[in-house]
């Protein structure tokens, strides 16, 4: 397999409602990524896009609907969709276009416009549940998180305040992010603990917001990196992905085995045998605060049940030994499902190429890992990047 680098990235503002259409959002993020990489569409061999359910937009063949905005016009093109896992998986799809030798330069564009769905995108999220076993119970998507969070908290005897620290950290980290929707420099653990109970144990400030937005990255082969004289390529060192059974009521939700499987696949490729020592920072997928902790454990960055302790001790702060979500994550920057590629793959690129501005981790970093997660608590996608 050939080496693959990220050589540019772009991102729109993340907001509850944006005026632009999906196509226009794709164009804005793509244009920015191309400009930052110093390439034009004529240089791009293949385009990959990612977006979550068609039902948000009310338009089927959504990938085709917005494809003009991705620069896909008369090029090899595909859309990938693996639920919430799409935010990192589309970058994996971009990677294999180049690693295989089929393309030298690829553009990966992820978009989500959740505000079109009225009165709230929750109404169509219900379509992910099994129509016969689950849907008669009129489930809300937050139930998934509440049930998983409760199991995780109970098994490890974790206090809610130790989970709330993640929301505080990420919303504060997001203050340095120019696209952030919910940055808050003054938020406290008490604010989270006193926020409205949505579905116990989930409270309002445990949750990332629905958003509109787009993000894009440009990827290149080693040959193209040399030819373009890229000064700060960030290499895709390892990729992994895995799905668990949709029969989610048949497995113990306290630990995401499928994330661990995806991580092991990525670490093997990246020649990492001690992730806690060899990985300098992480962008674990954080649609809810406990998910960052759950994913730190799934990514084998600590022992089961240890993530809340590392968080309490400050290890995961931006200047700590293992910074997590230096971008501000989904909790602080926003959660336009697939477009969170901007805080995951985008942030690894910006941090490792020294372009993260106010969010830059103050010490030397060489290797980072990001993951995304989705469907009925069953999909893990993992990317390791390094310089």
């Amino acid at each position, binding site marked *: 397999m050939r080496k693959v680098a990220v050589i540019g*990235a772009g*991102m*729109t*503002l*993340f*907001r*509850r*409602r*944006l*005026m*632009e259409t999906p196509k226009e*959002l794709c164009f*804005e*993020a793509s*244009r920015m990524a191309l400009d*930052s990489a110093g390439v034009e569409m004529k240089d791009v061999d293949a385009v990959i896009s990612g977006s979550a359910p068609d039902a948000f937009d*009310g338009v089927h063949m959504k990938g085709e609907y917005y494809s003009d905005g991705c620069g896909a016009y008369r090029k090899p093109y595909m859309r990938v969709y693996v639920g919430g896992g799409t935010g990192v998986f589309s970058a994996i799809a971009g990677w294999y276009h180049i690693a295989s030798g089929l393309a030298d330069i690829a553009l990966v564009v992820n978009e989500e416009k959740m*505000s079109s769905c*009225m*009165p*709230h995108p*929750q*109404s169509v999220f219900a379509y992910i549940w099994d*129509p*016969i*076993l689950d849907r008669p*119970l009129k*489930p*809300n998507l*937050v*139930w998934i998180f*509440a*049930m*998983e969070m*409760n*199991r995780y908290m*109970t098994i490890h005897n974790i206090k809610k305040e130790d989970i709330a620290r993640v929301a505080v950290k990420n919303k504060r980290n997001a203050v*340095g992010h*120019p*696209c952030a929707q919910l940055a808050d420099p003054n938020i406290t653990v008490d604010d989270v603990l006193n926020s*409205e*109970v*949505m*579905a*116990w*144990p989930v409270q309002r400030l445990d949750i990332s917001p629905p958003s*509109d*937005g787009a993000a894009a990255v440009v990827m290149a082969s080693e040959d193209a990196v040399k030819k373009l004289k890229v000064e700060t390529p960030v290499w895709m060192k390892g990729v992994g992905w895995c799905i668990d*059974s949709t*029969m989610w*009521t*048949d*497995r*113990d*939700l306290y630990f995401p085995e499928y994330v661990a499987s995806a991580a092991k696949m990525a670490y093997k490729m990246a020649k990492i045998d001690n992730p806690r020592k060899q990985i300098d920072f992480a962008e674990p997928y954080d649609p809810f605060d406990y998910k960052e902790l759950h994913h730190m454990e799934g990514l084998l960055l600590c022992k089961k049940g240890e993530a809340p302790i590392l968080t309490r001790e400050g290890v995961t702060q931006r200047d700590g030994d293992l910074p997590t979500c230096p971008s501000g994550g989904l909790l602080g920057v926003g959660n336009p499902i697939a477009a969170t590629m901007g805080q995951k793959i985008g942030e690894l690129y*910006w941090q490792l190429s020294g*372009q*993260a*501005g*106010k969010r830059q981790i103050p010490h030397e970093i060489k290797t980072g890992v990001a993951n995304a997660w989705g469907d009925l608590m069953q999909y893990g996608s993992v990317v390791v990047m390094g310089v």
Partner: protein
Amino acid sequence: MGDTKQWPGIELSSEDLIGKKVTQTRYHPKAQYSWAAGEAISRFLNELKEGKLIGRECKHCKKILFPPRMFCEQCFKPTSNWVYLKDTGTIQTYSISYLDKDARRITDPIFVGVVSIDGATEKMGIMHYFGEVTKDTIRIGMKVKARWKPAIERTGSVLDIEYFRPLKEGEQ
């Protein structure tokens, strides 16, 4: 990623939409579905109507799978036979929801979670409601029993069970 540059995106407020200050168009889809329940779940639903829970055995994995399926996703072989289970189980996890399915706030919370069913392989269960509990009495690990709707009202649906309630002492 300089911080001074203009990042793309034009924010709208909900007032912009409600006050129709922006050009927009609206659409109400009318999609309707009728799902065939399939081989395994049809039998499962028909047994619910009789007030019974049923699973399928995978002889290869030595597991009783619940909810039942015609093939085992782990060994990827057909399952072999039907097995009746008890209508008791254990709360694996739960939530107390103040949100309805459309994320609207409700004041009378819904107790919901996963109950693993006695007789099935460990930790295999279904999502369902819990009743006759309070936020102070419900706990993970609690033994529960199905409260069935009266036979005449059962339709062959997971809602033929109204909810799972705490198992009383000496009860089976």
